[in-house]
């Protein structure tokens, strides 16, 4: 089979973009343009131009002008990836009265100039791709835009500061938000902190009001101690199943009075909120200002759940709000858009044994230290050593623990320099200890950050530029006994130094949640190699994802500080509100349809569709495809033995022609063939 005969009537315009030197630097764009006019004339190319920036307004006007004056019926733009500018050029065609789907883009930047070094071969490849674009576009058909209605409700996953911000922005605009949080309370990491850099205002003071707002906002349906179980559907209309884990507390009756956890006899180390530095009861709320105020019973440690005795909480609860028989609930909601703000975890410092965390008592992690500084924390804000009483006389703060290290995380965790400076300040403020900061590079970008660095310098903190080699309790010289010795090269004086200190704080890296891959899969978005979710465009579309209707905000997308997380929360909300405001979203009109006359009723396609878009009419013995359900993957199209199914936008004719185009000049386009043909 070969593509339909080449059309005589189509008038094709070819536009080759220089993209400054991005393309023109490697591909001889002029030559490509001239060549297209000459070699592809028979295929209907009547105009072929090269231009510095096709995406510029002038570039677009060029296309519009040619459509109007030269009567182009097809347009091929050889430039960057269609994922970047397809919409731009389709728009241009549309404005000039040409059906936008009669415009085709060929990616000669991402797929040619940026990945090829040999100019001749690059130009040859560009020509082949232009040819394929031309051959394909001839077979393009005018398509009508497709729209889906947008459900006005939104799902926000993750109740950290980013999720809270997004939730408030959307709910305050009068739209409904379902906020799902895995832990018993919203607040996220920020709730664990004491002070926030660079202004040093207390985290609780600025966070808790927002948490309360979320709790009081009637448009917010809050699901804490809950997780998203499954997600179906697509942009505008997702069906989400939420697992509401049993709290064993009847929320309707609970007043949050706290008697249950006062009376609970079981004290356990709190690995989550207190980062292992403090204790909680088996029935607990993570912290005093928790939203919602309802506690949860941790069945792993609850004496009653473990060996059937106790029930102290039940005995003393004034409102009989304890219900040991409660079970997980499953709630199904429909939403138009989803924002993922599931945040980060911190690096396990035990993975770097030479830093001694877990072995040397007075080595702490940054998150432990945050809890220690916190007035509501395990030490009431006292800065003390592991014995709980002694104030340190000297403190070493180690940067880049698990960051900027190919053996752990090759990226920079962004916040550690600033939080380490914050720690130095806090130690100075609350003790008379000498403070030593060990850093590779001091990264204090953004407003007022470097000013804060200046301030900490003034306070007399010692800065040693060198990545710490090891932390040991093995003394070598007198004066080292009983201390922790931090050994590093002071790279500014090129000497190895051993600094004895009482306490060490490891500024551990920010890492993706361990289950980020599964979560990404659940929501149909992908993670980068190191586990952060991938944004649609790193600069121009940082909160959208490849999947329409799924947005990301905060540290899920990469390490971030509070201001940036808040900004992203708001940004994601804005994107969602835009969808809601439009009430409907345009979709690629890529859909499969059956030509009933051709359909032999063989039913091969019937069980191919995961979206159940294919139905079979027993009476007529023909298959039909439900346009609303079809997602346009084209699997059924490829499978139909009778060729009765067509996939708009990607028809057999289009693809066949594209293949022909790519190969039609293969002998003459610089790909020389020397070896003998193999006997087939």
């Amino acid at each position, binding site marked *: 089979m070969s593509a339909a005969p080449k059309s005589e009537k189509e008038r094709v315009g070819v536009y080759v973009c220089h993209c400054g030197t991005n393309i023109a630097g490697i591909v001889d764009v002029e030559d490509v343009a001239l060549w297209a006019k000459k070699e592809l004339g028979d295929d209907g190319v009547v105009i072929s131009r090269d231009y510095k920036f096709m995406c510029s307004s002038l570039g677009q006007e060029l296309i519009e002008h040619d459509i109007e004056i030269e009567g182009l019926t097809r347009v091929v733009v050889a430039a960057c990836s269609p994922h970047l500018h397809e919409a731009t050029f389709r728009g241009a065609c549309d404005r000039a009265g040409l059906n936008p789907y009669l415009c085709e883009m060929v990616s000669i930047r991402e797929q040619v100039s940026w990945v090829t070094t040999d100019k001749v071969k690059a130009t040859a490849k560009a020509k082949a791709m232009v040819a394929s674009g031309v051959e394909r576009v001839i077979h393009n058909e005018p398509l009508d835009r497709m729209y889906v209605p947008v459900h006005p409700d939104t799902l926000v996953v993750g109740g950290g500061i980013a999720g809270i911000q997004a939730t408030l922005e959307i709910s305050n605009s009068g739209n409904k938000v379902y906020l799902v949080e895995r832990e018993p309370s919203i607040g996220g990491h920020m709730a664990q902190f004491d002070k926030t850099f660079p202004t040093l205002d207390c985290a609780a003071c600025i966070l808790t009001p927002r948490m309360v707002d979320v709790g009081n906002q009637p448009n917010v349906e809050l699901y804490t101690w809950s997780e998203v179980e499954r997600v179906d559907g697509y942009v505008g209309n997702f069906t989400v199943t939420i697992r509401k884990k049993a709290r064993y507390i009847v929320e309707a009756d609970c007043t949050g009075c706290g008697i249950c956890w006062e009376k609970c006899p079981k004290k356990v180390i709190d690995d989550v909120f207190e980062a292992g530095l403090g204790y909680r009861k088996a029935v607990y709320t993570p912290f005093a200002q928790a939203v919602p105020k309802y506690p949860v019973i941790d069945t792993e440690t609850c004496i009653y759940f473990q060996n059937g005795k106790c029930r102290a909480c039940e005995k003393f609860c004034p409102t009989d709000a304890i219900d040991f028989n409660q079970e997980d609930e499953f709630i199904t909601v429909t939403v138009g858009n989803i924002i993922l703000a599931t945040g980060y975890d911190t690096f396990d410092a035990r993975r770097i044994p030479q830093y001694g965390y877990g072995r040397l008592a007075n080595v702490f992690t940054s998150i432990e230290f945050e809890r220690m500084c916190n007035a509501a924390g395990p030490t009431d804000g006292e800065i003390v050593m592991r014995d709980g009483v002694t104030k340190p006389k000297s403190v070493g703060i180690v940067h880049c623990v698990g960051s900027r290290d190919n053996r752990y995380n090759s990226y920079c965790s962004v916040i550690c320099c600033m939080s380490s400076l914050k720690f130095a300040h806090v130690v100075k403020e609350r003790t008379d200890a000498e403070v030593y900061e060990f850093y590779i590079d001091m990264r204090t970008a953004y407003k007022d950050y470097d000013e804060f660095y200046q301030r900490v310098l003034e306070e007399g903190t010692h800065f040693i530029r060198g990545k710490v080699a090891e932390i040991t309790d093995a003394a070598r010289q007198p004066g080292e006994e009983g201390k922790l010795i931090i050994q590093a090269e002071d790279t500014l004086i090129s000497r190895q130094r051993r600094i004895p200190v009482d306490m060490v704080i490891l500024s551990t890296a920010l890492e993706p949640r361990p289950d980020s891959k599964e979560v990404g899969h659940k929501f149909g978005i992908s993670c980068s*190699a190191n586990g952060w979710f991938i944004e649609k465009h790193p600069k121009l579309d940082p909160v959208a994802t490849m999947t329409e209707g799924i947005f990301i905000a905060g540290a899920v997308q990469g390490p971030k500080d509070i201001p940036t997380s808040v900004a992203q929360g708001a940004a994601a909300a804005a994107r969602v509100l835009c969808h809601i405001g439009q009430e409907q979203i345009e979709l690629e009109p890529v859909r499969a349809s059956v030509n009933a006359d051709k359909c032999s009723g063989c039913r091969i396609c019937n069980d191919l569709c995961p979206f159940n878009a294919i139905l079979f009419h027993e009476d007529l013995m023909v298959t039909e495809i439900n346009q609303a359900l079809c997602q346009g993957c084209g699997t059924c199209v490829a499978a139909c033995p009778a060729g009765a199914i067509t996939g708009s936008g990607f028809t057999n004719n289009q693809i066949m022609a594209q293949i022909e185009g790519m190969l039609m000049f293969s002998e003459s386009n610089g790909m020389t063939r020397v070896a003998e043909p193999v006997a087939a």
Partner: protein
Amino acid sequence: MTTVIDHTAEAVLDPAEIPKKSYLAEVVAATPGVSRLEMCIQCGTCGGSCPSAKDMDHSPRQIFAMIHAGMKDDVLASNTPWYCVSCYFCTSRCPQEIHITDVMYTLKRMAIKANLYDDHTAADLSKTFVNQVENNGRSFELGLATRHYLRHQPMRLVGSATFGLEMLSKGRLDLTPHKIDGLDQLKAILKKAKELDKVEV
């Protein structure tokens, strides 16, 4: 951008990045496998980890900066590689996974050729050792020690005589070297290998 941080990318960037014929390229080429020397970020983990750093005239980190800067003679005149005890702390801790110890071996080989480092103690120890091995197929501690001390610290030889005697009395030292049977075979192999390297030791 986030998605590119995938550090396997470096494998793709690698040698093209290094200007040809630079001293850096020279050192990289003389080191087996992938040394990643061009990836140094000057963090000082090596200098901080090195057990003999305090005796080095330049910390390993500094040496790498000098290599990048093309200060060939200063590098080859430095005692740094000769104080390397091959403990591999730097190599296993380097956040950039640079094969530091192997680079030190490379620098030793280059230094012997260039002959710019005035104290020959270490170089000669190596050479003497190699010599013993080439003539016997096995190392020979007594011969090694005596020949080495005779050349460098004759006084020490006297001092260490008792030491040697005790080693002998404890049966931990041979008086005569143990020769392997396939000595000629070994010599042939090493001869060929030296031709390939264009070195005569």
